[in-house]
């Protein structure tokens, strides 16, 4: 809470507009509380990294932003989550539309066992795009945006499972881009990749941040410092500190942040 207020005072000038506004968010798995009242704003067209040790709630937090946690039984949310100005936990809120506007990339690449083309075209199809030419256009544009087009343009009708791990993850990013989201959530998108593929994904994130608001969960602090504009440090279900990435890594305000980023725990 304190951290957020400071952030608002000192850094609001750089945050042009807020895409995600969270206030007093508490999250429960059954009786156990995983998030203890998180309050933060995520600025538009910036990369916000969520770091913290395993089990600190950063992934849970990420998944509240597109209501993926709804799929887990016996969970409960309290507090306010506004995405693109709407309270997404309001009764009757259109989940399909929310998830179209808030895309997600997962830790393990999860292409459908279909062709490369069908993987990308699936999202637009379920949102009502039928016209073949339009689909082809969307597929090419998404693959280009994900820096994968040149590698796959000659094998659009081959199975996506034949791609390498790094290519599969970029395919999943392209798939998320294909439904034209405004916010992209990434849950440790490079943690299962080799260094070269990781670099490719990181380059891609830097490319995408001009067009999209990105929230990325990462275990890797170097990665957070390389790709993000803002970093939020989570610890045991609390947001400890949020700040501009260089500031947070060079002069953290909180003792716990300092201990974590200097490797004293976690």
């Amino acid at each position, binding site marked *: 809470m304190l951290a957020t207020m400071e952030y608002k005072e000192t850094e609001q000038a750089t945050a042009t507009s807020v895409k995600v506004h969270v206030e007093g968010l508490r999250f429960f798995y059954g009786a156990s509380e995983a998030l203890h009242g998180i309050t933060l704003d995520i600025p538009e067209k910036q990369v916000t990294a969520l770091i913290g040790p395993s089990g600190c709630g950063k992934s849970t937090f990420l998944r509240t932003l597109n209501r993926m946690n709804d799929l887990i039984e016996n969970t409960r949310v309290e507090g306010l989550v506004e995405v693109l100005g709407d309270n997404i936990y309001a009764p009757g809120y259109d989940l399909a539309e929310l998830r179209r506007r808030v895309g997600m990339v997962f830790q393990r690449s999860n292409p*459908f*066992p279909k062709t490369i083309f069908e993987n990308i075209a699936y999202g637009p199809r379920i949102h009502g795009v039928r016209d073949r030419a339009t689909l082809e256009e969307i597929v090419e544009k998404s693959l280009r945006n994900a820096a994968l087009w040149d590698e796959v343009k000659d094998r659009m009708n081959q199975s996506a499972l034949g791609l390498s791990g790094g290519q599969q993850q970029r395919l*999943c990013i392209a798939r998320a881009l294909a439904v034209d989201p405004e916010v992209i959530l990434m849950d440790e998108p490079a943690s299962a990749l080799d260094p070269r593929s990781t670099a490719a994904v990181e380059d891609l994130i830097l490319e995408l941040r001009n067009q999209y608001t990105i929230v990325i969960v990462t275990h890797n602090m170097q990665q957070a410092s390389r790709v993000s504009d803002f970093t939020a440090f989570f610890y045991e279900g609390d947001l400890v500190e949020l700040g501009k990435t260089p500031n947070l890594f060079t002069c953290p305000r909180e003792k716990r942040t300092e201990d974590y980023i200097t490797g004293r725990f976690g």
Partner: protein
Amino acid sequence: MNKVLNFDTGFVWSMRLMALLVIGLVVAVGYVLVQGSSEAFQKFGLSFITGREWDPIMGSYGSLPFIVGSLLTAFLALLISIPFSMSIALYLGEFANKGKISAIFTSLVELLAGIPSVIYGFWALFYLVPVVRWIQERLDIPPIGVGIFSAALILAIMIIPFSASIAREVIRMVPVGLKEAAYALGATRLEVIKDVVLPVGKSGIFAGIMLALGRALGETMAVTMVIGNNNIMPDSLFSPANTIASLLANEFAEADSSLYVSSLVGLGLVLFVMTALINFLGKMLIRRLSK
């Protein structure tokens, strides 16, 4: 080191022996069927299979009515059972796949598979056949009750647990990551089932359906009790008929001539080959589906 190796070799060989024993059994059954039916096949040739007349008194044995009876009841049963078994599988595999209710439901479905065939037969005779008779009265068909349709109904009920259990397991094993990928794109639950769960699970689901079909083809007791035991070519879904299995059960005890016995064994061989052929075709289809 050597001791371990010796043990391993011995262990592998003993397992290999057991496996070979099973193959030996299949060969032995096949041999008995071929040997036992040679008289009938020598006498009638191919017309043993294509013949429409089964008349032990006149000494003429043609099996086509029973081949048709077996295929008709089995496929009809499959057709009737699929909507039920797939609904059960989806409900238990995708919707209620955790918790007490699901566990109770799952074991109840498995219990269905454990009810003895003869009990299904009794139940069908007392409860299903009257229902079929009622339908026949409404349709202005002689209300016989017993026949192909009654047999298919009870078979459908009997094979539901087989295809449902396998499909349920397959559906449960569809990776969560794939489903999440579709949900994260804005897919509804129905779309996730239609576009992810069923396509990913289709070869396993199909394998379960094939197993159920095999069961339906070979099922004897319950079918014998409600099919009407009529040795003529079925000419409607309601006509009393016989399957290969029900005919064998009915007539083996009274077969008095060696040609009669040989013809019955020949029918057994036909059923054996039919089942093997359907299994083989099913495997080919599964291989194509899982590509």
